[in-house]
Structures are given as structure tokens and as C-alpha cells.
């Protein structure tokens, strides 16, 4: 009957991890519906109070800021990654291909703290970028880049690039060169070929890359914490502050639950909005 007798054993480690994850999520959920007792690590009885508190403008704003930050990061990553992915797929030079791969994938191999610290060196008031611009005479005095949303987005774009480049390259490599050649022969210049053929046919990759970038950024912690320096508040930095500065575990837990629900909702929405585009581009 069972033609693959070891299949059950192969998936068992993954099953174990899944069980652990579900248990942890249940624990978080359990915390989120308990009352907070100031000055104590113990939690009180059952309450929905934590969720109700989230409607206050301070927290609602943090959610809104986070969604905005994720959106900006995903958009900039897409704009920067698309040409790279295109060049990666279409170049005949293997040297250029390796160069693009190395440049776009290295951020994955740097630790989050090391990478973020590098950005702090680049973005600081006496940092690399300001010094360079001052020396070149493009600026009169340093520009504030640390502790701004812009700085956070720049660093987040850096870490999201690899996955976006890889997903876009995968989609682009499935587009038959003959589609573009056929369009060219029919009188379409490079811009028209790109807008009417290449771009629509790469839509599945764009949607996949965009939603992945969105989800990654939503859960990013070290980058907004260190570069934002408390002045850029996102859901994850808020959870950290509440949990580890105020020791309000119940409220931190309820923020986590809502954050998770929100990012799932946004991704589901993106997918739904993009479905007609994907169907349009599908070749099968």
C-alpha cells in the first residue's frame, strides 16, 4: 500500500518543530488574555482589556507606521531589485552574473546586528555618508539620517534585497526570450516591449517578492530598534519595550497576536488583489 515507507519518518522532525511552534503560539495567546499586575511578573485573571487598549491612538499609530514602513521598504526593494534581477537573468557575461549574485546575496550572510551597525556608521551625523557629502560640498551641515524612518527603510531595503532579487530572477528566467523578440519584430521598441510583455509576464514574481518583503519587514526588530533609536516606533519595537522595559507581558502578547493577524491579512489582501494579474500572466 504505502510505496514510500520512510516518508513518515522524514517529516517527523518538521512535525516536532511545528508542535513546538504551536505550543509557543498558544502560550502567547494565553498571556494576551490575562490581566497585567503592575510591578509583578505574575499575570492576573482572564480579560479582553489588552485588546481593547490597542484602539488607543498611540498603538493604532504604531500599527499604521509599521504597515507604511513595510510598504515603503517593499516598494523601494522592488524598484532596486528588478533591474538587478533582469540583468542577472539576461546577461551573457558569467562574470557580471556572479558579481550581481554576490552583491545581492551577501546581506543574507551578515548577522543582523553587524549589518545594522554598519548602517549606523554610514548614516551617523559624523558618518560616512554625511562626511562624504560635506567634503564634496553638496551639504553645508550634516543631515539627520540616524533615528529617522528614512534611515530605517534604507537598512531594511538592504536586507530584503536578496530574497526579492532571487524571486524576481526566478520569474524572469521563465519568460521565453522569443516573446520579446516577437514583440520587437512587430515594431515595439525596448520600452514598449518591457511594459507590455516583460513586466506583465513577471507579475507572479513581483507579487511573491513584494509580499515576502512585506512580511519580513513587519517582523524586523533589530534594524528599526537600533537605527530608529526609539524615535521610529513599529509593532515589534513596541512589543519589546512593553515586554522588557515595562514587563507588561500580557499587553506585549496581545500586540504580537494582532501584529501577526494584521500581517497575514495584508498578505492575503495583496495576493487577492494580484490574482487577476497573475492569472493574466500565467502561461499554462
Amino acid at each position, binding site marked *: 500500500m504505502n510505496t514510500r515507507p520512510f516518508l513518515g519518518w522524514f517529516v517527523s522532525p518538521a512535525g516536532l518543530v511545528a508542535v513546538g511552534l504551536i505550543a509557543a503560539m498558544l502560550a502567547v495567546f494565553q498571556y494576551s488574555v490575562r490581566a497585567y499586575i503592575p510591578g509583578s511578573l505574575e499575570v492576573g485573571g482572564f480579560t479582553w482589556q489588552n485588546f481593547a487598549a490597542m484602539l488607543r491612538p498611540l498603538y493604532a499609530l504604531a500599527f499604521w507606521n509599521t504597515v507604511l514602513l513595510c510598504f515603503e521598504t517593499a516598494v523601494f526593494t522592488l524598484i532596486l531589485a528588478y533591474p538587478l534581477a533582469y540583468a542577472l537573468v539576461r546577461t551573457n557575461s558569467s562574470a557580471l552574473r556572479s558579481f550581481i549574485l554576490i552583491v545581492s546575496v551577501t546581506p543574507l550572510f551578515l548577522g543582523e546586528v553587524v549589518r545594522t551597525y554598519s548602517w549606523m556608521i554610514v548614516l551617523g551625523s559624523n558618518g560616512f555618508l554625511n562626511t562624504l557629502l560635506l567634503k564634496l560640498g553638496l551639504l553645508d551641515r550634516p543631515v539627520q539620517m540616524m533615528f529617522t524612518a528614512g534611515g530605517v527603510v534604507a537598512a531594511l531595503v538592504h536586507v530584503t534585497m536578496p530574497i526579492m532579487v532571487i524571486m524576481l530572477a526566478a520569474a524572469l528566467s521563465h519568460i*521565453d526570450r*522569443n*516573446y520579446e*523578440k*516577437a*514583440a*520587437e*519584430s*512587430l*515594431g*515595439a*521598441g525596448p520600452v*514598449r*516591449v518591457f511594459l*507590455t*510583455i516583460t513586466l*506583465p*509576464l513577471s507579475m507572479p514574481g513581483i507579487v511573491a517578492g513584494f509580499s515576502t518583503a512585506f512580511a519580513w519587514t513587519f517582523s524586523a526588530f533589530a534594524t528599526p530598534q537600533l537605527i530608529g533609536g526609539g524615535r521610529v516606533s513599529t509593532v515589534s519595537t513596541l512589543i519589546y519595550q512593553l515586554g522588557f522595559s515595562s514587563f507588561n507581558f500580557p499587553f506585549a502578547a496581545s500586540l504580537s497576536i494582532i501584529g501577526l493577524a494584521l500581517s497575514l491579512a495584508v498578505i492575503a489582501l495583496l495576493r487577492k488583489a494580484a490574482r487577476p494579474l497573475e492569472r*493574466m*500572466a*500565467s*502561461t*499554462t
Partner: protein
Amino acid sequence: MLMRTNQMAANTSVAGSDKARPAVQLDGVTKRFGDSIALHEAWLKIRSSEFMTLLGPSGCGKTTLLNLVAGFLEADGGEIFIEGALVTETPAHMREIGIVFQNYALFPHMSVAKNVAYGLKTRGVDKKEMARRVDEALALVKLSGFSDRKPRQLSGGQQQRVALARALVIRPKVLLLDEPFSALDKNLRGSMQVELKQIQRELGVTTIFVTHDQGEALSMSDRIAVMSAGRIRQIAAPDEIYRRPADRFVASFVGDANVLNGRLVERSGDAAVVSIGEVRASVPAATIAEVAIGGSVDVFVRPEHLSVTSRGASGSLPGTVTTQVFQGGHVDLYIDAPGSARDPILLRSPGIAGLSSCPVGAEIGLSIGSDDIVAFPPGEAP
């Protein structure tokens, strides 16, 4: 030669017509990929409304030549003209050519009508005119009811028709066909060939057709350019290619050929006489110009030009039947003739009589019954 050139120039000035001017002209076009030469100094003139086939095995440079005409590749040397205009440096989207790819390359995200309309949109044709011409093109390829379908909802043959309509609707100066039949099954292929040829003749569109299938080339073309290893070996009408191949490669690539061991007996003007054993045959002298009288030559004889006679009949070669292959309309006989040929000789016996009259092991005589025999200096069988 000079006189003919003058005559042609005179024709052009008197008539001023497009007929005298080649629709496509390649002057010594060369293309290299790294160190290897994909196309070596190709010279080719294609007349207006002509159906020209580029025939050769894979890697012979035929697709490179097509891509050069289309503008997808840049030539490393030589010039390309389309309707008299120099286009060597012109980008593909300004050359006004129609192209049908092997895999059709229909835009998967557009309907049939949108696919066909694509080339009209880039030309800024107005909506009403566009709709009219799309309908017209779809009617031409007998797909009138299919405007709203997506390419994936069509069969291979229908996709090919759409690709053809899309290429023709822009009224291209040249139609390029890149092995368009190779993805179709055999029965469909035949009927599509007939239909394509009809449409091509009806519209009078100059066509360059790339194929490795000699049957396709012989049946559809006005002229064929046979290519091998980046060079054009012969440009001629199909019957000329078949009857008077210019070299060993053409003789063996187009149609089946038996190579017999012969000797040059005499030469007089354009003709020469060769002997194969006791048999004498007349061949063109041009292809064996460098062979001395009495020197050995390879004589190429088509299977249908051989016939079976009784053993020892005068003017026949002795042989033994080794294999019979029944092909329906004819019988292929493989005959061992150690004195006359290295390899078994293939003989095509019409009807089914050959099955009973020439059983395996039968000792027979072979006679050569045609003037369409050519000889080449001896060489390795290609």
C-alpha cells in the same frame, strides 16, 4: 557577367519596379560567436515574392542568418539590404519583418485578437481599421471565431495560425519562418504546409523559411539555399538541387544517395563519362574538373534511378539482395555490390512486385536508368 549586370540596371531604370530589386540582399555577411564562425561571408539575393528556404543540419548557420535578417543579431562583417535599403545597423523593431517562431511565442497574457493586433498598435493604426485588419487576418488563417480565446486554449496548429496571422497583419516586407512545423504532428504538418504555401502565394509575401527537413524544403520552396558549417553550399531551385547537387554535402544531405566507385573515362565540354564496373554513365564535368582521366571518382546515384535486371545483363552491376523493407507504396531493397560500392546500395522498387521478385539472397543485376547522375572527387562519406 558584366553584361548581365548592365542589363539588370537597365531593367531597373526602365521599369523602376520592385521586381528587379532583390527583396532581401546579403553582401558577404559574416557572424562570429567568440572564436567560432557561425556564418561565413554569406552572399544571397532573394527576389520579391520568392519563397526561399535555408536548409541544413543544426549548427549550419541557417538560424544565425535568419536572426541577422530579423535584426536580433548584429553582423560582424558585410551588409544587409531589405527592399534596397541598408538595414545592417537598423534595430529589429524598425525593420518591418514578420516572424513565426518554432514555439510560436504567442503572448500568453493576451487574447488571440490582442496578439494579432499587437503589431498594429505599435504602428498607431486607429481602432476601426485595426479591428477590420485583425478580422481579415484571422479569416485568412481560418480562425474567425477565435478572437477572445487565450493562446493556451488553442491546439498547436491553431496557435501556429495565430502566429502567422500576427506576423502577416502588419504587411511585412519579409516573412521569416523559423522551423514552424517541427512542433506539429506529421498529419497536421502536411496540411499546414499546403495551407502556408497557398497563403504565401496569395499574398505574394517574400518569405525566408528555415528548416532541417529536406522534404519540407523540396516541396515548398521556389529556391533553396543549402547550408553547412556556416557556409552556403548551393542556391538553386529544388529540382536543380536534387538533380544537380553542387558538392558531396548537398548530394548526400538532400534526398538519399548511393555512392558508387567510378573512374573518369573521358571529358568533352560540359559533360564527362564515368565507368562503374562495366557500366558507363554521363555526368556533368564541372564537379570533377580536377580529376585526371583514369582517376577514381565517387558517383552519386539516387535510389529511384536504379532498377533490377537479371544477373549478367549487359550494362548491369552484379549484386545480392540483403534486406527488404516494405514501405507501402514501394519496397526498399538493400543490395550488396562489393565491387561497385563500399556500403549496401539502396534501390527503390515501385509497387509491391519487388517483395516477391527479389527475395533476400537473390543474385541480381543493377542498371542505372537516368541522366541525373553526378560525380565528385573521392572523399570520406560525409
